[in-house]
């Protein structure tokens, strides 16, 4: 029964993150929303790991944490680059190319 509560928390966090990515236009807020999604992943992994008695879940969560940090490092560098060139970090202002 306890597992469901963790999964529910994970799902709510994940949903919040997806909503943030889709509605926020500021790059830093988009990054934070993606971090929420990754936090949801970690809650899932640790909960499943703890309930099935396997360490793989916790190991996986550690890898997710580490790599997310590397990703955000690169991401903030790109945001800084854009801010220098455009004096804005709004995704709507990055519009030279038309998809």
């Amino acid at each position, binding site marked *: 029964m306890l597992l469901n509560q963790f999964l529910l928390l994970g799902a709510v966090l994940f949903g919040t993150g997806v909503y943030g990515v889709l509605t926020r236009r500021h790059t830093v807020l988009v990054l934070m929303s993606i971090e929420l999604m990754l936090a949801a*992943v970690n809650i899932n992994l640790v909960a499943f790991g703890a309930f099935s008695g396997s360490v793989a879940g916790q190991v*996986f969560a550690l*890898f997710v944490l580490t790599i997310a940090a590397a990703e955000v490092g690169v*991401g903030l560098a790109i945001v800084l680059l854009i801010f220098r060139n455009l004096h804005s970090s709004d*995704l709507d202002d990055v519009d030279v190319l038309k998809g």
Partner: protein
Amino acid sequence: MNPVFDWHALAPDVVLAATVLLTLVATFLLPDRDATQVSRIAAIGVLAALVPVVTLANDGADRAMFDGAYVVDNYALALKAFFLVAAYVTILLSVDYIQEGDYYRGEFYFLLLTSVLGMSVMASARDLITMFVALETISIPTFVLAAYRKHDRVSNEAGVKYYVIGVLSSALMLYGMSLIFGYAGSTRLAEIGAQVSAAGAPPLLAVAVFLSLVGFAFKVSAVPFHFWAPDTYEGAPTPVTAFLSVSSKAGGFVALLNIVFFGFYGVDGAGTELWWPVIWVLAALSMTLGNLAALRQTNVVRMLAYSSVAQGGFMLVPFAAAGIAGAAGDLGQADTAFGAVVIYLLVYGAMNLGAFAVVIAAARRTRSAEISSFAGLFQTSPTLAVLMTVFMASLAGIPPLAGWFAKFVMFQSAVEAGGAWGITLAVVAGVNSVIAFFYYAGVMRQMWFKEPAGEDRSEIEVPYALTGALAITAAVTLVVGVYPQLFARVGELAF
């Protein structure tokens, strides 16, 4: 218990990792950060990593390590060889571009090879954690590479779009993976497959599989998850675009093959109903929308971007066919179809890198990526025009070039998978092959029947490195077209 290290099996990745570190150290130690020297180190390192791949292929035994998380078999070796050769060609494409551009820095090769290392690990990954780490090792350096021209707004935009989509897709994929881990209680793909066959597929697993497939669909830029690709491809430096559209895309496909074939497929094709409808829809949409959008492009890089979306759709056709055949219980046919995906991937790599090599060579004179800038190329540089014709015709699937063989195995797998769904997919692919012919022929028409625009009618000088890249890609495109058994055998051995 200590883990067993089979150093022979690990050798390709170890050599590559050592080269990655060496390029970084060399970048900082060499005077003026001499990128030409760094490019030589990178090229030699990539070729050195090919040596153990050949000796392992000669040896032929399957080697599994770390409790089955890392496997070196024929499938892994074929793909490692592909990634290494593609990396070598990409280095050849980049040498003069980086040297003559404003960003003459050796870090370029460090980032490029780090990404290649991720691909090489991905080919051997049989575990969710290993796959995730490999996928991020592929992706993170390419975010930086896309934004490499840092004072150029267009390149910035390419970087940020690629980054946001890339990170979002990883998050979706990870959420799917966390649910799969919860279902199977293990991160090993083999155990996930066993669990699918033993316990069947609850709705939760369908959601998990769907989420992880969507994550990978972003990586391989399948429609409707392709919208980042044209912008990123146009904005990034052209050699990086070639790398993204061939190696990085192939990395995504290998991830997809791993997780589907070794995991969701189940031991006996029990799990196929979970994923083939998703792949079927992605394939049909990618082919149709990719081709229709490519028809309208005036910029050759954007045209190649949409063309690569469409080619990705063609590659998904045998994938879906494998699922259809597996669901019908025809496991031999399913294996042939999986082999067809690998064959298409190898052929696509050669012809697409070749097309980009010609675009880079021609842009040295014209400084333009418009399709109209190819006007009269046959009069000024006949060799380049003939080579571009070869690559365009091969992408369109005209015999006797390699692209024809790739299309042939693709159609064969769809038709032999049979059923209404298999035949429908073959028909959609057939109609799309015809549409695709028009935009590839558009480039040929410019080269052969138009007058050159500028005053300068001398032949375009092609540097040595670029000549090498053109020679390798043209040789593969021609030889495999005439002698397709070469790659057909690889497809058979892999599965």
